């Protein structure tokens, strides 16, 4: 047996000295200033023109998608939507620093990461219209995307549940000897769930190559972060759990990209977790069911609009001489039209046939589910007009 000493190298004091809150100062990495210029002392990440333009295009794409889908919800065409406006740099900048084989476990506001991976407009639309082409077979509310092919785990509404799962997934990657990590996104609100503490602690103890990426956007629906925690954000907790930690400006895509690149390298080389806290702001409402005028001021929102992550990055790209303005306008117009076209197509596609209702509950449907389906089909045949979405195909 190993002889343990859990006191380690604890020093001794001989007067009562209660440690004050906030003694650890965790600074924030910023490469680009809000006006898009580079800080004179900043280390620029190694980033290719191709990658930079792909990031910009994904940001612009997501903004167009968000605008269009919020409008579609208002028109009653989809039941629900959740925009990520203001947080594009956090999700897209981090996704860009990963490799395609890395697993993404997201919360629900990371459509930018998914788009960067290559999720198509058609796939977005099929999901939001819950039609029969949808990869999750129309079983979840709009925005609960998932793609096995793109290593993007299907989203679950309950908050924080993906955090310990990410630790487990990353442990599996390590044991299989893969050159891959798991990134786990969550908000500062979800970090109050017990699953956060369980998941990060387990990743630390079990040496899991996971990147815990917190989008600290200031609000959990209406609850401001000062009512969410009294400590120094989420970064301070990483230190408490013995996890390497960095805080970045979540509206600065180059800072996010640099930090995530470094985190991936450390996670793989040292086989350990890294926590990134991205300081950003949810300019969007929580969802289309939410109205932020009930809990925050227009002035506050305006202050953050000035820190627009897309404009900041575009300005930098322009200064690098990588931006062809004419081509970019063309890209935006083409994207707008593609979104409209795919939206119109997806809303015409029927939902899955009724047989799907009992599938995937188990690997194969047991007797009682088969019996319930048979009874349901008999019933639908008797009242076809009451179940118009499925009766036509019985």
């Amino acid at each position, binding site marked *: 047996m190993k002889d343990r000493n859990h006191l380690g190298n604890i020093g001794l004091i001989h007067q009562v000295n209660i440690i004050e809150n906030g003694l650890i100062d965790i600074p924030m990495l910023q490469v680009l200033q809000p006006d898009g210029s580079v800080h004179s002392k900043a280390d620029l990440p190694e980033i290719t023109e191709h990658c930079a333009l792909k990031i910009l295009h994904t940001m612009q794409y997501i903004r167009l998608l968000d605008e269009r889908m919020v409008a579609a919800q208002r028109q009653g065409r989809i039941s*629900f939507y959740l925009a990520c406006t203001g947080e594009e740099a956090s999700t897209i900048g981090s996704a860009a620093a990963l490799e395609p084989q890395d697993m993404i476990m997201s919360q629900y506001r990371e459509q930018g990461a998914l788009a960067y991976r290559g999720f198509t407009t058609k796939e977005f639309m099929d999901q939001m219209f819950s039609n029969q082409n949808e990869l999750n077979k129309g079983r979840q509310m709009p925005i609960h995307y998932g793609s096995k092919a793109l290593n993007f785990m299907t989203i679950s*509404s309950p908050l924080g549940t993906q955090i310990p799962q990410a630790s487990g997934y990353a442990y599996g990657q390590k044991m299989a000897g893969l050159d891959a990590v798991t990134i786990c996104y969550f908000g500062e*609100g979800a970090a109050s*769930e017990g699953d956060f503490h369980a998941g990060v602690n387990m990743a630390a103890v079990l040496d899991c190559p996971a990147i815990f990426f917190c989008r600290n956007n200031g609000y959990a629906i*209406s609850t401001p972060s000062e009512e969410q925690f009294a400590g120094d954000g989420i970064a301070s907790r990483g230190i408490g759990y013995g996890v390497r930690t960095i805080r970045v400006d979540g509206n600065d895509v180059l800072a996010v990209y640099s930090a995530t690149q470094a985190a991936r390298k450390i996670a793989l080389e040292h086989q350990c977790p890294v926590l990134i806290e991205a300081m950003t702001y949810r300019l969007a409402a929580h969802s289309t069911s939410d109205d932020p005028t009930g809990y925050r001021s227009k002035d506050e929102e305006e202050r953050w609009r000035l820190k627009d992550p897309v404009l900041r990055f575009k300005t930098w790209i322009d200064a690098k001489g990588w931006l062809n303005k004419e081509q970019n306008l063309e890209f935006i117009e083409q994207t707008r039209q593609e979104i409209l076209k795919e939206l119109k197509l997806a809303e015409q596609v029927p939902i899955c046939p009724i047989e799907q209702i009992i599938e995937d*509950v188990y690997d194969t449907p047991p007797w009682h*589910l088969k019996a319930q389906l048979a009874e349901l089909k008999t019933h*639908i045949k008797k009242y076809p007009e*009451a179940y118009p*979405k499925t009766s036509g195909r019985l």
Partner: protein
Amino acid sequence: MAKMNMLQAVNNALITAMNDDEKVMVFGEDVGHFGGVFRATSNLQQTFGKGRCFNTPLTEQGIIGFATGLASQGSVPVAEIQFADYIFPAFDQIVNETAKFRYRSGGQFSCGTLTIRTPYGGGIAGGHYHSQSPEAFFAHVPGMKVVIPRNPYQAKGLLLASIRDDNPVLFMEPKRLYRASVGEVPEDDYQLPLGKADVIKLGSDITLLAWGAQVEIIEKAAAMAEEQGISCEVIDLQSILPWDIETVCSSVEKTGRLLINHEAPLTAGFASEIAASVQEKCFLHLESPICRVCGLDTPYPLAHEKEYMPDHLKTFEAIKRTVNF
């Protein structure tokens, strides 16, 4: 009397309870300044201050553990879980702590003043994480009471009774009816008894039993059956635990038939418990098997929500089958 929807009735009950007893405190995710995502707690913080109505961090296990401790200290917490689908991180606290607090201490300590409010149920295009009806999980826990209202009047009276009951109560609110159900509600303080069912309509051929939002479904089916000459007695169970076996059995002894409807999946749903108990008590009065019209044994679907739901048509067909057995 005033015209209120169910949200206004819940809000009114909370104001009534907070005015009546300064130990009543209301908290949960977003319930403070914002008044809750459904606005059930509107203006409570503004009226009663941040000490008595406040936002909590986003942790259901924390909310219920905190509420249980607060109740054991002698306060009267009304804790909100934003959706019943999200109550499960608090399952350990509810099942192992809240429900057993009095029993394990030989009656020395109790958290009986605790009430947990939570919206539940489907019909709102919420998919499986905003639609579930988990009442049967909690009905399986000795020490918890489970209460579900069907309209604004019942909501206020039953919520006030739950807050003042000396047992922890899980008060489940049918969110599909939050704005859809409107009715006359007394502005005064009143309570409706826990553990009592409500016979809504008398009938002679079959007893229809449901709770929450499904009560209007069985009423609709009853109206269809009446047109075919089938007389239905309609009962709202109101309290899932303890449940009013006396009212249900005396109805079944009269009609000889029982149909139970709930949104939750069929298998091990609360209808199973009712059916088992009723056949024990009323075996010789039964003229047909007790019938359950329930959700399918699948997660609550999104695209197939309409097909999944135990609607009035499925109920009507089941009434005919039962009567013609």
